[in-house]
């Protein structure tokens, strides 16, 4: 069986006296090995201290994003066979480092939801005995298209703006607002949306470099969503008093 060399970023903020360094490991590489399989193997056989995150291991939960050979990717769905040479693994930038490859995306994304007020704003009371409000199936599909974001952070890590501006909500944030804007159940006014995202923290902070569009593992149409929101924000901003 062939072998594969990994070069992995190591640093634990709890032991700051040990400076960050790259550590190398070599393991056997069976066909069809994913980075998920590889990292677990390294932890179980070579180095039980290695920190990284996986949950679903099926590209659904968004836990395992890391920088793999220079690109932010989901580790669970990256086959080592698709990579050339030594596999270099770095934690995602922007997010707070927990240790080695593990970063705190949870806190960041909760902040995003709070900032963009990511919930249905409705004045209706729930009536358990009434039938549901109708919705066009096309609309439902359109909402789902934006809702598919798994909060993995790849779009944020690859984004220059997010790297220099701490408060920038990134493609995930702008896409999130798009999700609510197309939802007829959300009663927010133009002005309210504008307040949420009509600034450099949101739509106007984006410089259109589209690293996000290249990196989204869910292949969300981010360029489309970003420009949709930007145009809406201009019209909301110019029309709202």
């Amino acid at each position: 069986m062939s072998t594969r060399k990994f070069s992995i970023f190591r640093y634990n903020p709890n032991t700051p006296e040990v400076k960050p360094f790259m550590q190398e490991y070599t393991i056997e590489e069976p066909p069809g090995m994913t980075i998920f399989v590889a990292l677990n193997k390294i932890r179980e056989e070579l180095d039980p201290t290695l920190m990284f995150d996986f949950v679903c291991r099926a590209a659904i939960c968004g836990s395992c994003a890391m920088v793999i050979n220079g690109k932010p990717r989901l580790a669970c769905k990256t086959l080592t066979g698709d990579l050339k040479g030594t596999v270099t693994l770095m934690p995602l930038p922007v997010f707070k480092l927990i240790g080695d490859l593990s970063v705190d995306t949870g806190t960041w994304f909760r902040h995003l939801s709070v900032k963009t007020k990511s919930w249905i704003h409705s004045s209706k009371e729930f009536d358990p005995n009434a039938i549901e409000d109708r919705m066009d199936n096309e609309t439902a599909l359109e909402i789902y298209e934006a809702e598919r974001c798994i909060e993995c952070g790849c779009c944020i890590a690859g984004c220059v703006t997010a790297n220099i501006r701490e408060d920038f909500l990134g493609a995930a944030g702008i896409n999130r607002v798009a999700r609510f804007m197309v939802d007829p159940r959300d009663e927010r006014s133009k002005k309210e949306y504008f307040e949420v995202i009509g600034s450099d923290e949101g739509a106007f902070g984006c410089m259109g470099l589209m690293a996000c569009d290249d990196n989204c593992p869910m292949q969300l149409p981010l360029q489309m969503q970003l420009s949709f929101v930007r145009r809406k924000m201009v019209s909301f901003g110019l029309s709202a008093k």
Partner: protein
Amino acid sequence: MLVQKILTRNPKAELYYDLVELFTGIALVGFLWTHMVFVATILLGSDLFNTLSKSLDDYYLSYVGIPIIVLIFLMHILSAGRRLPTRYQEQKIIWRHAKMLKGTDTWVWVFQTITGAAIFALASIHMFVVLTGWPITATTSAGRIEAFWWFYLVLLLLGEYHAGFGIYRQFVKWGWFPRKPLGYVSKVITVIILTLGLAALWVFLQLGGA
């Protein structure tokens, strides 16, 4: 910093900045390309070039146009430049980021800021020189270019680069075109303009030498 924060408290400030960046950018690209077309008339002969320059002068277009362009130029710098990382810390992050993450578009942007800054410097010099040597004729231009051909070559390349990709990014940002073909389109435009420009440069050099 606090002052700026308070000043930008106008909730729509950033919307306006963004629009100003867009429109001044488009205007500058328009200006650059017309400018290049005018300059390229030299290819059709010095007479045409001189007539054109003179008629612009006669109808006072130059006197109105140049200050407006200067104004637009400055506005563009202010609005687009607001994103420039001013602190050394931020600049370091960008370099590290661009090196660690292999995104071509990130490099495009890094070059965009560098070229932007360079154009600011070079174009100011160019303008100063032209204005002090008023009016524009084929002979004076040729003389200038012969002496400073490398200067103009650099300015030309920077300008075209900045304009080509600037417009590409605006189109992407506003979603007027899907992404991939647009990259191709803007490159094509850049090549055309560059060819025109280089040809003009060459003709001036010929004239100057003659």
